[in-house]
């Protein structure tokens, strides 16, 4: 892992088009400003992991599952 030390107001670039700025440091919290192209996904880690984990679970669906849920749906 690359480790950099920055002060409030300073920033860094990742490649040519992703810019991260340290906006404010207050106690244990840091406010970051992130400028990135819309094609880049920027998410808090816990949110990213939650969606990724849900996608991984969902990817295991089988044909028989759809037959079963279609039947359950029609019964509702």
């Amino acid at each position, binding site marked *: 892992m690359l480790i950099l030390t920055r002060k409030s107001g300073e920033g860094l670039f990742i490649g040519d088009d992703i810019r991260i700025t340290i906006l404010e440091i207050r106690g244990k919290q840091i406010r970051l400003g992130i400028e990135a192209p819309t094609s880049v*996904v920027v998410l808090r880690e816990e949110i990213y992991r939650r969606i990724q984990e*849900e*996608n991984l679970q969902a*990817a*295991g669906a*089988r044909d028989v*599952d*759809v037959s079963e*849920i279609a039947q359950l*749906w029609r019964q509702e």
Partner: protein
Amino acid sequence: MKIMASDPQTTSTDPAVFTTKTRNFGSIEVRSDQIIYLDPGLLGFIQYHRYILIEHHREAPFLWLQCLDKEGLAFVVVDPRNLLSDYQPSPLAQAMRDLKVDQAEDLKVLVILTIPPGKPQEMTANLMGPVVINLKTRQGRQIIVEDPQYSHKHRVLPA
């Protein structure tokens, strides 16, 4: 089984047809104008971009989102309006701009279902990570909704 043409109004003059393998349907024929490009790809599968939507059961709203870049990768999806009539998370507006959706009817919103093996009654819908598609351009992406009223494990059927 029917692959959904992404834009039924447009009849492409001579779309290329090719055969692809799928886990659930064996080999199927796909026309180039049926392909949906997800960019970025789904979280956890960002390297895969080409998908098709397959209708499976006429009497139920569920669809398969089948990946063309990895034959074993397929998701069960549903239009969230079948689950919540007022599903309208705020990031949809930005997604429409990013995907250059001009008219609301060109926007397709789908949510991914998770079906616990052997417990279909307990299936959940991921309302935090809808897949949005511009039917005109066939470009789409998974957007993230951070709104406490929308769960990533929304129960679809009553317990």
